[in-house]
Every structure is written in C-alpha cells, then in structure tokens.
C-alpha cells in the first residue's frame, strides 16, 4: 500500500519506458532546458529555418495586403461555393490547436505525468494555430477593420448581432479560446520566466524576463494558489476545447445543406481536431527532439502514447464517415444519398478516396507497436494524417456546397494562386512563430520537469 497507486504491478511498471531519462537532478534539468534559450549558440539550422519561414510570412503579408487592396474576388470563392479555402483552413488550423489544450489540460486532469515534457510546446502550438485560424474569417469579411461589428454593443446603426446564428457563436468561441489558451500558456510560463531571469547573465535579457516573471519568487503560499489556479484553468479549458470545435461544427450542421446537417458533427469534429492536432505535435516534436537532444525528456513512451491517441481519434473519425454514409442511405432522403454518391463518384472523387486512404487506411498501421516506436514511420504517418484532415475539410466544405438542391445552380470550385499563397503563408507564419518560441522561451516546462526528478536518495521521508 505504500506504493503509489498509479502504475499497478511493479513488473508492469518496469516494462513501460520512463517519462524522464535516468540520472537527472534539479540542476541538470534546469540547465539542459534553459541553456537552449540562454547560453547555447543559436544553431545554423535555426537561422536557415527561421529565414525561410520568415520569408513565407512576408508572402502571407503580401497576399493579405493584396486582398485588402483588391478585394475578396482574388480568391476562388463564388456562388455556389461561397466558402472555400478560408473556412477549410480556418477549421484545419483551429483543429490543430486543439491538441495543445488537450495535452495540457485533459492529460493534467487525468494525472498523466508523461504530458509534462510536451505540454508547453503543444500550448505554444495552440496559440500560433489559433492566431492563423482567426486570420481567415477576418480576411473573408473583406473589411477586417470593421471586425468589431461582430461584437454586441449599443451602436448608432441600431442593429445587433444575431445570436441565433452559429457564426456569432463562433466569434465568442474563438476569441474566448484564444484568450484562455494564452492565459493558460502564460501562467504556466511564469515560474520558468523567473528561472530565466535568475539564470540570465546579460542585463537586458534579465530585465525582459524579469518584467515577464512579474516578481515570482517561488513562495509556498504562491505555489499553492498557483497550482489551484492552474488546475482550475485546466478544468475550464477541457470543456472549452470541446465546445470550440463543437461550435465550429455547428457552423455547418445548424444549416440544412446535405453533407453539413448531421447530428454526429459535434463529436466527430472534436475527434477530428484532436486527430489533426496530435499529428501536428508529432510532426513537430520528432525532429526537434532529435535536433536538440531531448530524448531524455521526450522519451519513446511519449511517442508511443501519442501514436495510440492518433489511432483512437482516427477510429472515431472513421466512425463518423461510416455513420454519415449509412444514415444517408437509411434516411431515404435523395439529397443525402446524392451527396454521398457525389463525394464518392463526383468530380472531386480523387480527393475523397485520398482522404479515406490518409485518414482511415494508413493510420491502421498504428495498431503495431513496431510502427508506433519507429520515429520515421510515425513522422510520415503524422504528415499523412495532417493532409488527410485538410482533405476532410475540403470535402465537407466544397463538395457539399458545389452541388446542392438545385442542379441549375451547380458549379465547381477551384482555388486560385492567391488562395494557395495565403495558405502557404500561414504555414510559414506558424513555423516562424514556433522558431521564435524555441529560441526565446523554454520549450519544456522546467518546473514541472523538476517534479519528475526522483528525490535524492536517503533523504526522502514521505
């Protein structure tokens, strides 16, 4: 009974890989993580990567500038497909963000210690993904400087937003999500900012981290309130993350377009978001882990667990496809049936079958532990899933819209070069922000890693 209840039988506990490599002390953990920010020379690969992604960010700015000057007609959206790349990429980006909140909040509540070394990074990913996601609806408005019209406030026009519209729900959901994700991330950073403040040699660096750390001194009473606040935020962020993608799914399912109006959309979108998000976490952490030599902190156990979550959420997404197809037939509605047939046999059928291969077929490899523990295979699968989830949004948005009830109003959607340049630009912007984050902030939570360090031998007396 003296043993901690978590891991069960000791024989089994030994089989599982540890969450932190052997031989680490409080000092070595602090040094190893903070040195990436404070003392190590910025590696050449960082400069190359940052330069490329910075140039892509400039491409994004150029595309947005052109859009503002010349108008939304630059994009491929037109009747009947009024929502194209803007909403596809909005949903894709915000879905990617969800894995970050999931790792930091839900796994914290479930007391999964292995989350500790990936949560900071995943939260940063959330923030940057949400920033990219929020860009799209703003740009699609055509006059983004009037974005404040979306908020309910007494105004001289005498009008109010329509709270029965899911698009207004989206305003509240996405802005709440962005703010709460930022708070969660920043609160988690405070003790580590204090560490950087106290470790920094350069006076300017010390002052900057000092201001950000807000005078944190590690007082026991502060820690108590801090931990309560962090846990409560996790408890709030968990339903929030589910609600955000649910509201995104309502953007579609509240309407009556076949292919959009399905009751399964909320859980199926949430699972899809987590699926894409974990794929992105793997896509990013696998190279960073080996480049910065963080194998002691992001162990095979982490990689294996993320592979399992990828498989589980992928199966839920596949369940969604299955239910949509079955119910389209079962409903007896000719519009529902045509929608499914049009996906499978219509002009976009290549994309549909590519989606099935990427999201349903390939991830079945993850049943094998050998595949989950093979970094290259896992990395490729994570990329495939990222592509698959993008295709899923394309199918849902474009294929549902392009042939709806009235055949005379049918049409095709083709993204323009500007659609692509904006999308590629957001990829660059996302990665550029991540490069900056890796360089200037500790990408692994130092204080939480300290709690994983075993107590010095002989002194522990619990």
């Amino acid at each position, binding site marked *: 009974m003296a043993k901690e209840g978590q891991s069960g039988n000791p024989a089994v506990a030994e089989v599982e890989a540890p969450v932190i490599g052997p031989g680490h002390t409080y000092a070595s953990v602090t040094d190893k993580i903070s040195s990436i920010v404070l003392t190590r020379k910025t590696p050449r690969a960082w400069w190359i990567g940052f330069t490329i992604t910075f140039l892509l960010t400039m491409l994004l700015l150029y595309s947005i500038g052109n859009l503002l000057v010349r108008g939304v007609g630059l994009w491929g959206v037109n009747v009947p497909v009024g929502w194209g790349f803007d909403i596809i990429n909005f949903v894709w980006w915000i879905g990617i963000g969800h894995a970050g909140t999931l790792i930091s909040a839900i796994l914290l509540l479930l007391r999964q210690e292995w989350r500790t070394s990936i949560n900071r990074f995943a939260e940063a990913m959330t923030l940057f993904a949400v920033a990219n996601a929020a860009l799209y609806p703003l740009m699609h408005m055509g006059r983004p400087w009037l974005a404040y019209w979306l908020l309910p406030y007494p105004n001289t026009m005498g009008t109010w937003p329509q709270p029965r519209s899911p698009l207004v729900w989206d305003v509240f959901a996405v802005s709440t999500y962005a703010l709460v994700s930022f708070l969660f991330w920043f609160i988690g950073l405070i003790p580590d900012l204090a560490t950087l403040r106290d470790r920094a040699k350069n006076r300017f660096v010390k002052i900057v981290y000092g201001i950000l750390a807000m005078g944190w001194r590690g007082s026991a009473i502060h820690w108590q309130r801090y931990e309560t606040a962090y846990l409560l935020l996790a408890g709030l962020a968990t339903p929030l993350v589910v609600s955000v993608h649910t509201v995104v799914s309502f953007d579609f399912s509240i309407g009556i377009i076949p292919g959009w109006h399905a009751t399964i959309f909320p859980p199926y979108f949430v699972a899809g978001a987590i699926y894409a998000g974990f794929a992105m976490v793997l896509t990013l952490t696998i190279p960073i882990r080996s480049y910065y030599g963080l194998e002691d902190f992001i162990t095979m156990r982490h990689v294996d667990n993320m592979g399992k979550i990828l498989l589980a959420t992928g199966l839920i997404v596949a369940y969604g496809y299955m239910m949509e197809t079955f119910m389209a037939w*079962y409903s007896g509605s000719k519009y529902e049936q045509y929608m499914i047939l049009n996906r499978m046999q219509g002009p976009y059928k290549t994309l549909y079958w590519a989606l099935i291969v990427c999201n349903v077929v390939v991830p079945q490899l993850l049943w094998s532990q050998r595949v989950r523990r093979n970094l290259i295979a896992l990395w490729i699968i994570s990329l495939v899933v990222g592509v698959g989830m993008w295709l899923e949004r394309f199918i849902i948005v474009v294929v549902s819209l392009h042939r709806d009830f009235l055949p005379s109003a049918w049409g095709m959607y083709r993204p323009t070069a500007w659609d692509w340049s904006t999308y590629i630009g957001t990829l660059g912007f996302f990665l550029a922000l991540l490069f900056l984050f890796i360089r200037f902030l500790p990408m692994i939570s130092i204080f939480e890693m300290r709690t994983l360090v075993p107590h010095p031998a002989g002194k522990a007396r619990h």
Partner: protein
Amino acid sequence: MNGGAVAEFDRFRRRVLAAGAVALAVCAAGAAGNPDQFFRSYLFAYLFWIGIALGCFAIVMLHHLVGGSWGVVIRRLLESGAGTLPVMAVLTLPLLAGLPRLYVWARPEAVAGDELLRHKAPYLNVPFFLGRLAFYFAVWIALAYWLNKWSDEQDRTLRPEVKTRLQWLSGPGLVLYGLTVTFASVDLVMSLEPHWFSTIYGILFMTGEALATIAFVIVALWLLADRKPMSDVLRPTHFHDLGNLMLAFLMLWAYVSFSQFLIIWSGNLPEEIPWYLRRLSGGWGWMAAALLVFHFVVPFVLLLSRYNKQRLRILAAIAGGVLLVRLVDLFWIVMPAFHSGGLAVHWMDVLMPVGIGGLWLAAFTWQLKRRPLLPAEGGY
C-alpha cells in the same frame, strides 16, 4: 471468498431472483389483457439492464487500455456485469415474440403502404434483424468470455503476458463494441420510429450506458465497502476518481443530447423534428424539463464538490439518483414512439424493470461470488 460472504451473496441472489420472478409473473399475467403494453414495457426495461451489462463490458476494456487504480477496485464488478451478457441473450427471446407489435417495419401490410419503409426494407426486415441480433450477442459474449477467462488466468498465474494479452484484446474489442452497440441501438430503438434518423444516436446510447454503469458500480461498491478485502483497500481517492468519471460521463451525455437537440431544432426539417415535437409536447415536455434538471443540473452541481465525491455514502446517493433518472431518460426516448398523445405510465412500466432487474442482479451476484472481490494483480 470466505463461506460467510458466499452465504450472504447467495441469500441476496435468492431474494432478487424471487422478486424478479414474481414481478415478471405478474407482468406475464397482465400480458394476456394488454400484450402491446407488455412488449413495450419489456423493451424499455430490457434496454436499461442490457445497457449496464454492455457498459460494464466497455469500461473493463477501457480500463485494460488506460489503467489506473480506480478501475482495479471495480474490475470484478465490471467483469461480473459483462459476464451476464449470456443471460441477457436469453432475455432477448421474449422480445422476438412481439416484433410486429413493437416495430412498424415488421408488419408487412404497413411496409407495403409506405414508400420509405419499402426503401429501408433491405435493412429493416425480420430475418436480417434476427441475424444482426445474433451477431451482436455472439461478439459480446465471445469477447466477455475471453476477458473473464484471461482475467482468471491472470489471477492464478500473475504473468505479465496475460495482461498484455488482455490489452491486445481490448483495443479491437472496443472497436467491435462501438460498431455493434451503434447498430444495436439503431435496430432496437431508433427503428421504433422508422422514418426518423440521427447519426449521433449510437454515441448517445454509449454515453448513457456508460453513465448508468458507473452509477451502478458506485452503488455496488458502497454495498460492498465494509466487506473484508474491500475495506482494506478503498480510499477516498478511489471515490473521487469514480465520482469524476461519473461527472465526465454526465457531461458527455448532456453534450451529446444537447448537440442532437440543437441541430435538429435549428434545422427544423420535417423528417427530423417530429421526434422532438412528440417528446416536448404535453406531459413528455415536463418529463424533458425534469430530465434537464435531474439528469444534468442537480447531479452536475453535486459532483463538482470534492467533499461529495470523497465520501462514498454521499456519492452512492448521487449515483442512485442518476440510475433512477437514467431509467426516466430511457422511458422518454422509447415510449413516445407509442404514446404520441401524451405522457402515459402503465403499471407494467414500473414493474418490468424490477422483474428483469431481479434476474439480471441474480446473474450478476452469481458471477461476482465466483471469484475474489479484488484482482490479484494489485495496483489498488
């Protein structure tokens, strides 16, 4: 398990069996006068208890995959619940006698006059329905059999590879569970109103069943808590975890139910909205409001408090309430298909859950007494 406890279990088993048999006998006598009502009540009560059996079956597999001490202390309860599935298979047989009374699509003259039912006939027809039910039960009973058998083997040998084998079975097992329970819920319940459809329906049933199961297990744990191996092991953290699990399933149920309602309410399509119109008018509407309050708001607020979750007596009282509202929720889902006019409760609707429950609990207790109350692998 020692002799005294076995005798006590046997006494309990005899009592619930007697109560169940009497209740069923009274209902069977009533069936002569009102056979339609007999089958309706039977279906409703049957769904409640098979839901708990299936929930036990799913949660034990979930626990094999994710681990945690909360699951070790309830594992024998869950395994015993899954072990009752053969009994539920036998209890399905009376239902089959009433198919045309329950399901419109099982009446050839009704199908002939309804274009939509003719369209669905390749799926909704009696032979295929029976074949599907047989398949579901074959999958469930086989998986539950292996889960229990290997768990016994693990108890005897304590070899880690048995645990690996259990985990290996549980992953695909959960996939099979998800598919079979989804289609079983479509077949048994959704097809009562064969024009209506909802893609989230299977998930709604799975979350409801999981919620009822956790509530049932908490109540059972409370009854067993003073007994020897349990009283040495149980700690407030176990109750806290189980309380949180119940809270999670409660929120999930509310989420899924509200999502379905909001989407159908907003779409307001003639093929979907009648399901809710029937369930929100007259007495059914009041029942829906009561469900909102007692199936979500009250237990949700009570379960937010750490104080309530760490005390087994309070937690068991909440769980008992949840079990009761689960019954009401199922009633609200099943019965308006027959009584679209307004809320109507027949005496058989009250007696039948007792009848089937008595038989089910007897089977459950028989399963439970066969083995020690706690698995030998430890990790409490």
